């Protein structure tokens, strides 16, 4: 699996490093312009978050394109290993690229955002964070990224299997993604009375009142999210098995 990952990374390393470099430069520019013109902390942080979201979208697209390419690649399909390793390699690739963006965000937060601005931002959402909350939030963020990308790749796989000749597969993939994310979210919510990670990474909970702005944003303890996490773990194993089967038995090349 690590050898597959190595060649995925080599193929797209230029794109990834470029996106990360542009991200750093954009954040530095934003910080410099915002500070010199005396922007409100909320505006600076909000714009910064938008740049991070853009970078993540590029990473998702890069990972998805690599996965699609690998599904139709003789070079990859000829390697005598179980298809599950191809999927896991792609998931590792996407998760790591997202973690790289998260890491830049954390360093950004620690180096450039004054503590007063950060606490002002957190107070707006009535967040009360402890160190344990931060650790669980990071862990759930990584797991959530992995799980969301698994859902994306599952949808792509279903689309590719349908897309033997023609372009119907793209639409099938999109529909499958919408159905599967909602289904997992609904099941998780029904069983554990907690929104599933397909919607919001499992542990972060948003409780809103009648207004459009959330009343409180809190990070629940790992204990309350454990059931939901275990459910996602089982769902992930099932999805991996469901993806590997058509790659091995059904997918044309």
């Amino acid at each position, binding site marked *: 699996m690590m*050898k597959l990952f*190595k*060649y995925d990374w*080599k*193929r797209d390393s230029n794109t990834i490093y470029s996106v990360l470099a542009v991200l750093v430069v954009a954040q530095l520019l934003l910080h410099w312009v915002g500070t010199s013109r005396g922007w409100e902390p909320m505006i600076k942080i909000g714009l910064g978050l938008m740049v991070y979201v853009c970078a993540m979208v590029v990473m998702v697209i890069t990972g998805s394109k690599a996965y699609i390419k690998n599904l139709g690649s*003789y*070079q990859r*399909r*000829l*390697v*005598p290993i*179980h*298809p599950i390793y191809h999927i896991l390699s792609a998931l590792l690739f996407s998760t790591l690229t997202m973690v790289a963006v998260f890491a830049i965000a954390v360093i950004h937060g620690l180096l450039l955002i004054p503590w007063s601005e950060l606490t002002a931002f957190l107070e707006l959402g009535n967040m009360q964070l402890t160190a344990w909350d931060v650790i669980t939030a990071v862990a759930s963020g990584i797991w959530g990224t992995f799980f969301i990308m698994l859902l994306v790749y599952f949808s792509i796989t279903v689309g590719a299997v349908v897309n*033997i*000749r023609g372009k119907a597969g793209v639409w099938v993939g999109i529909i499958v993604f919408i159905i599967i994310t909602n289904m997992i979210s609904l099941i998780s919510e029904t069983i554990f009375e907690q929104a599933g990670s397909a919607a919001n990474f499992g542990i972060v909970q948003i409780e809103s009142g009648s207004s459009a702005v959330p009343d409180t944003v809190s990070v629940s303890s790992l204990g309350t999210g454990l059931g939901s996490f275990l459910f996602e773990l089982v769902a992930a194993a099932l999805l991996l098995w469901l993806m590997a089967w058509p790659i*091995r*038995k*059904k997918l*044309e*090349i």
Partner: protein
Amino acid sequence: MKEHILHLQGVSKNYAGKKALDQVSLSIGKGKIVGLLGTNGSGKSTLMKIAAGLIPYEGNATVLGKPAGLESKAEVAFMPDRPLTESWMRVYEAIRMQRDFYPDFDENKAGQMLEFMNLRDRDRVSTLSKGMQERLQLTLTLSRRARLYLLDEPIGGVDPVARTRILDAILEFYDEDSSIVISTHLVREIERIFDEVLFLKQGKVVLQDEVEQLRSKHGKSVEDLFKEVFAE
């Protein structure tokens, strides 16, 4: 009992209702260079992909007794009609990739083949000519210690000099414990290296025999027979 490297029994393949292969049965023994001959669209590439374990099929296909698929992939080295390399690579990186992916990859043999093919380690794959690309793909495939080599149109679209070099390389670096199946419609250029030929027409095997037998039985070259069988 005679050892079959590749054995197909009643193998069929449909693409959106169109039959690409229709009840194909054949056996390929050890130490043979077999020509898989047919016109465009006769099912040659489909048969190769099935033997390489790449696509689903109906019927029974085995490589050394293992069902064609995940179980048999380690025994088969396939050179498809599309490159096994990626555009960002240099020649040495393509060699390293094969070494990383296949435990049976022989780096010494690869080195010898690169020299024979006049390929340089530092050459960029994206800058190689069509002929040099084919030489590299052949090097990557034949440098494995596989039991079955499948070469899909290895001389298609390359100049006569490269063709001769490629055919010489196949003869030079071919391991007699294994078998090679070469698909082509360029019969004249390649028939000198075949032990057996197999004619595929509209997804069906219409002829399979040893080249010497065919020549003595029909008093014709393989190319003349090919023209006769595939005449429209």
